[in-house]
């Protein structure tokens, strides 16, 4: 193991933008003696520090691994363009922030895949580390490359590059993977043996042990294991109860996104919105009880010195004790200078009451709601029912309780959407603005944020297709003009970057060639507006002879085998299909806490369901 030449590094750091991204040295960073441990894990988030350091999953694993005396974990992020150029020029391989050790010298490289537009950065990160990008090119001298995170529920597009995927919650899984690695290491065996050993762990998917058979028209016939003792279907892992909150969150020396204490109050969501990937893959709902939340906040404040706190969940209002929590958080912190944000609130006046409970701990900014669709018909299609009356009443409450900025999230391009549904978004925004102006005049601001629908794997809409970008652009243009006239702020995603996310999230194994080719062509930082260049991708599709439309333009047959069908979220395909058909009939389903719809999750995990009363699961 050789450390990076510090002098050379300092020289290049002097000339790059925000060099603080590359030096570590933060409060609560853990720097262990390299030789005092058995196994060294590099945890990578393949985007810049400013984004990656805010990732909760990474922070949880970092702390859990470093809590073990026989292990160490260090962090690595993608260098920004200027730093990459300098590193390549000076032949400096990618290194960890803590000890400045080259990534290729670690035993295990664990990569977070939170979203798909990060894939080319994974290849770039491996390449910058001097590690061959393809799994088959790597041997026992290279780190074992594993990946986890929300995008791994369709691992196939990255199958050529990742040795093993950890599917689902990683808190227990990571140690089982490390344990298998340690056992294998002591046996001095080959890589294939390691991979087989990993594949025996429940929740681990080793793509090289599976093969895909196709029909002549390109659709998948079947995916099957090519070796014994590995499962046909890989069921995700879940943590039966939420892991203990982070005790020593790293306090970045430079400003990052979400620069605050993060306390996860609930994982999963019972709402059942049909477009929502997170809502399916994170089932069942597990919530943290109020005492543990308060303790986490107290620890967090003392360990970080932050004056901002965010209580994280997919749907804060749905925590069964949310009112007690907000009251207690206020009592706990009323003498402090702390700003507490409570994202993802339901559209009802009660949400405003919740914020009121926080009194002067309420953050300044604005209030955010997510109606997602503006007509009753579309709301039934996506299973997010909401009465306009309640919406406007809530908006009235929000403005009358002193908020002047209101942000509303909507989606376009949803299955079965008509122009009138898009018009209704504009109409609603104008009515909302009118309510605000009646109360506060021109001081109020309404901000509408438009997301374009992507038929995500594992959701009831996985059989649907993506709307073509031209038609999406027309809808955006319509909204832009209308909002401009009414002086309502509008933000939206570029239709072509939505397209990329759709290809990558729905892709199969063959897409690996396209990703590699696009990266060769220059694609990286695709998640960035200024980074994404569609030409790299179209050229890559051309060069590989793979048709992009195949992945997103077809309405799927109900019996089509999807590339991700061998990865199970615990929710059955039958249930998803039933949901899809209900959506086409415009039928909604009530919150599953009021009665089980038999999605399948309980069948898969009932044996690990805690029976103590203080570890609440959303399932009835």
């Amino acid at each position, binding site marked *: 193991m050789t450390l990076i030449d510090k002098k050379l590094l300092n020289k290049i750091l002097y000339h790059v933008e925000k*060099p603080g991204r590359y030096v570590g040295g933060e409060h609560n960073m853990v720097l262990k003696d390299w030789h005092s441990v058995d196994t060294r894990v590099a945890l990578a988030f393949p985007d810049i520090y400013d984004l990656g350091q805010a990732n909760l999953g990474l922070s949880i694993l970092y702390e859990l691994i470093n809590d073990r005396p026989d292990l160490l974990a260090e962090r690595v992020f993608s260098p920004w363009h200027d730093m990459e150029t300098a590193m390549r020029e000076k032949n400096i391989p990618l290194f960890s922030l803590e000890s400045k050790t080259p990534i290729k010298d670690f035993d295990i490289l664990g990569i977070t895949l939170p979203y798909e537009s990060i894939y080319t950065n994974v290849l770039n990160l491996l390449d910058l580390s001097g590690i061959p990008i393809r799994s088959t090119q790597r041997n026992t001298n290279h780190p074992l490359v594993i990946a986890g995170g929300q995008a791994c529920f369709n691992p196939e597009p990255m199958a050529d590059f990742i040795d093993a995927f950890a599917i689902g919650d990683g808190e227990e899984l990571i140690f089982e993977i490390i344990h298998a690695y340690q056992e294998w290491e002591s046996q001095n065996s080959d890589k294939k043996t390691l991979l087989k050993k990993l594949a025996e762990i429940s929740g681990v998917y080793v793509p090289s042990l599976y093969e895909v058979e196709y029909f002549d028209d390109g659709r998948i016939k079947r995916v099957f294991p090519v070796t014994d003792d590995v499962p046909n279907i890989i069921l995700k892992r879940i943590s039966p109860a939420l892991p203990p909150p982070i005790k020593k969150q790293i306090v970045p020396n430079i400003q990052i996104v979400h620069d605050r204490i993060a306390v996860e109050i609930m994982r999963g969501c019972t709402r059942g919105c049909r477009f929502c990937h997170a809502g399916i893959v994170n089932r069942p709902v597990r919530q943290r009880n109020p005492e543990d939340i308060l303790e986490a906040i107290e620890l967090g404040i003392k360990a970080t010195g932050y004056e901002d706190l965010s209580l994280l969940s997919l749907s804060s209002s749905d925590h069964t004790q949310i009112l007690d929590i907000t009251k207690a958080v206020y009592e706990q912190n009323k003498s402090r200078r702390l700003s507490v944000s409570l994202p993802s609130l339901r559209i009802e006046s009660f949400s405003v009451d919740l914020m009121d409970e926080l009194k002067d701990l309420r953050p300044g900014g604005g209030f955010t709601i997510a109606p997602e669709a503006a007509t009753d018909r579309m709301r039934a299609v996506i299973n997010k029912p909401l009465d306009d009356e309640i919406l406007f009443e809530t908006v009235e409450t929000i403005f009358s309780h002193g908020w002047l900025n209101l942000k509303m999230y909507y989606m376009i391009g949803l299955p079965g959407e008509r122009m009138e549904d898009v018009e209704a978004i504009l109409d609603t925004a104008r009515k909302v603005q009118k309510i605000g102006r009646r109360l506060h005049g021109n001081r109020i601001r309404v901000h509408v944020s438009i997301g374009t629908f992507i038929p995500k794997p594992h959701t009831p809409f996985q059989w649907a297709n993506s709307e073509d970008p031209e038609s999406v652009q027309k809808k955006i243009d319509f909204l832009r003009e209308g909002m401009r006239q009414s002086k309502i702020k509008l933000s939206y995603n570029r239709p072509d970057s939505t397209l990329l996310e759709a290809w990558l999230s729905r892709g199969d194994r063959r897409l690996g060639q396209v990703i590699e080719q696009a990266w060769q062509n220059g694609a990286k930082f695709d998640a960035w507006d200024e980074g994404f260049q569609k030409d790299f991708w179209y050229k890559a599709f051309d060069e590989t002879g793979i048709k992009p439309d195949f992945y997103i333009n077809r309405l799927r047959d109900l019996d089509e085998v999807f590339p991700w069908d061998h990865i199970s979220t615990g929710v059955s395909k039958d249930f998803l299909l039933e949901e899809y058909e209900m959506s086409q009939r415009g039928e909604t389903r009530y919150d599953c806490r009021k009665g089980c719809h038999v999605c399948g999750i309980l069948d898969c995990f009932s044996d690990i369901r805690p029976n103590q009363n203080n570890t609440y699961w959303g399932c009835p």
Partner: protein
Amino acid sequence: MNPITPFRVRIKFAKLENLRFIGHLDLQRLFERALNRTGLPLRYTQGFSPKVRINIASALPLGFVSSAEVLDFWLNAPVDLQEIQASLQAALPKDLQILDIQEIPNKAPSLQASVLSSEYAIVFPIIYAQDDINAKLRNILAQETIPVERRGKIVDIKPMITTHAFYEEGDSTILHLQMDSSATSNVRPDELLKLLGIDPADVIIERTNLIFEE
């Protein structure tokens, strides 16, 4: 009005290694959070969004190390200085080291207003022959004016450079400089280095002293 007389504390600290790449605003935020972690009875600024009241004497350019940074902060009650130093040091990253701590009369003038100049030690690696730099520097300083460009404007930095001297330490040549760092007259050592044709990234620039108005 806060009825308690504020307890004003001044620390001198070193900024080393990794932390040299953390800029002024980030350093300010870092100290706010570190002070928060100490649990000391901090005093906050007045106004709409109160912040921990701190005052850093002089912004240190990115990439420089220092053994002479100075910062004031205010407490609502007197606390033993050694206790403050211990708890603040424990809350700081290891590349920020407190060198000295003292109580300052609350009415003392603000740090920024009383900084006059800085002393720097610029460490040249062996590859730079001392005589060569020395000769170049002598030529530059012999000029009537030393014009440098700042945001499109030409500024004469000659009157801002107080002293310079070379000395040897081990294998390295060190250039000692004293130059203005006040609100009205301010020059950076790397401005001079550029005139010498030296990439500031090739040398180590350390601020070794801050000189204040008496």
